């Protein structure tokens, strides 16, 4: 036991020293408005009314695109690892959960859709909406573990990749249209952003559910 203890002490000391150094450095951070000004200046060309959405889907759309790609990749990775234990092993008995879900899921879908829609002008967006959708999906899975993902494999794959596909298509369209890769024609920006957001929200929701399931669903055990 002596070695682990030594390494614990060392870790504590080193982490403490790092923490102190970080705090001292952070407290010296200068004040500045970062990129607020350029964002404000460019807002009228962004196609949306909310700054965070504009940054996420237009100014730094590439980040968001890659982040959707990370989610998709995570699904493939979990899928490649293979499924271990079905989660949960059996469905929750009793009427309460099912009864609640019967009302909750439609509300969640509605809320998710609203969050995506509203994201263009105020707080909200694909991730918030997608997260709500995902939560609804997870609850469905918890309640009826073996019934939800009974969809064709190709369809499932397609839906989970939808966000990336739409975003990529829009991005390549921007490239071909001379607005740069991941760019939009200013007139179409709003429509394209909403389309991308909707697709992204669906993919995020489904991706989160699939990740919760460990990547693969019933009936998708064979991939060849």
């Amino acid at each position, binding site marked *: 036991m002596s070695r682990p203890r030594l390494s614990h002490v060392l870790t504590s000391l080193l982490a403490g020293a790092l923490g102190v150094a970080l705090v001292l450095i952070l407290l010296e951070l200068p004040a500045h408005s970062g*990129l607020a000004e350029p964002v404000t200046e460019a807002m009228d060309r962004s196609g949306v009314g909310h700054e965070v959405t504009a940054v996420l889907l237009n100014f*730094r759309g590439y980040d968001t695109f890659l982040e959707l790609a*990370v989610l998709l990749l995570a699904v493939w990775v979990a899928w490649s690892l293979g499924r271990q234990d079905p989660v949960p092993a059996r469905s929750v008995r009793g009427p309460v959960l099912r009864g609640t879900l019967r009302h909750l899921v439609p509300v969640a879908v509605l809320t998710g859709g609203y969050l995506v829609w509203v994201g263009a002008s105020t707080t909200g967006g694909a991730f918030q909406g997608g997260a709500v959708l995902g939560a609804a999906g997870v609850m469905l899975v918890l309640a009826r573990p073996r019934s939800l993902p009974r969809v064709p494999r190709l369809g499932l794959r397609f839906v989970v990749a939808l966000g990336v596909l739409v975003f990529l298509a829009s991005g390549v369209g921007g490239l071909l249209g001379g607005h740069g890769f991941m760019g939009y024609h200013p007139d179409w920006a709003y429509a394209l952003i909403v389309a991308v957001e909707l697709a992204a929200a669906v993919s995020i929701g489904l991706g989160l559910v699939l990740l919760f399931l460990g990547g693969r669903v019933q009936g998708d055990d064979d991939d060849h």
Partner: protein
Amino acid sequence: MPIAGLTGGLSWAALIVIVPLVGALLTGLWPRAGGWVALVVALLTLGTTLGGALHVWWQGPEIHALGGWEAPLGIALVLDGLAAFMLLLTSVVGLFVTLYALGYVGRQERSGRFWVLWLWLWAAMNALYLSGDVFNLYVTLELVVLASVALVALASGGPALVASMRYLLLSLLGSLAYLMGVALLYGAYGALDLITLAEQVTPGHLLMMVAALMTVGLMAKTALFPLHGWLAPGHGSAPAAASPILSALVVKVSFYLMLRLWLTLFPDLATPALGVLMGGLGGAAVIWGGIMAMAADRLKPFVAYSTVAQVGYLALFFPFMLAVPGGWRAVVFFAAAHACAKATVFMAAGTLQRAAGHDRMSELADVMRGRPISSFAMGIAGAGLVGLPFTGGFIAKWLLVETAIAGDVWPWAVVVVVGGLLAGAYVFRLLGPAFLAGRGSPGRPIAGIMEWSTLGMALVSIALGFAGAASLQLLDATVTGPGGL
């Protein structure tokens, strides 16, 4: 340096990202078509990277403002000499690995998984090489990590899984250290674009902390001694088609990022003391990896430890950066030479392992004699690892020693020369059995393309020996910080 800004119309940089990404998406949708998609993607990616490299060669670096939003607001793709060189390297190695994998995974069960992960990894690496934004680099870095961890874990079985778990955790630790650096940079300078930041940064405690967090975080991913522990079990237990990718390419990705950051953001921090520290770690890696390679009794961990040793040379860019203007180019060329040689050795090792049914080094002599093509390729690659003439490794060694002497930091030349001798000893250990008397036996049947693609890769490592001047010229077209290293 003239920078041909190109915001409208087609852009090589964008194409280089898009092509493998489309391939990755297609294989995700139709895993069964993975092999063919990968082959087409490999050829197209090679074509686009060649186009990009020629563009840089003739017209200088290309900066593509994504979405038409110029930095600092938007994200820029930066295709310069360094990025083009690494992309070209990735494409060439990637093409041969793809050919090899066509034979290796073949119609094996679960082959689709390999293709999906490999194409995602390829897309992620391309995106990382081109990214000119510190936060975007973090996202691409995570893409690379997830895909490569999954490639290790494809070889199911306790050791591979534990190795990939260790790799994942250390990578996440490194990534978050890097991300902390990004947060500090943004907090201090309010910008994420590398070129914008490079003009603003001032040496100070904050920048030092950023440099420490980012450098060590990336060191862990590069497996630089003493943070190399995850590499040998990971690369040693990964599937044969994945090991060359990991050892030849993925390790170089984080090295590239480290180099890029030091060339743009931290040139003012490069002090002799740091050079001694990092170079010393590199030298220790060379010795330690060499000893561990001598101790290994299985072929693939042996090759992986040789990677640990050779990664040590990469750390020499710290002392070189300060000593000689452009001295880092020798290290980059070395990275390419090592990538070609190491990919070959791992591919040949995978072939021998499959042919023999095991990879115990002491019992491989028969199969080595029975598979002359793979053994021959391994011989060429071994010569490359040692740095014998007519391989890329030789040019790399020459450049490293010349740089060390030109910069009057000759102790690093001793490291290179001693490392070469050590490599000679362990490569001899690798190839020696093939020369002993005895009958050869080809072992279990092997797809022919595996052996021929290995040979092709070996020939590339020879061809690299004839591209030294051109490579250095390409690397000259690199966008660096105001320090102008």
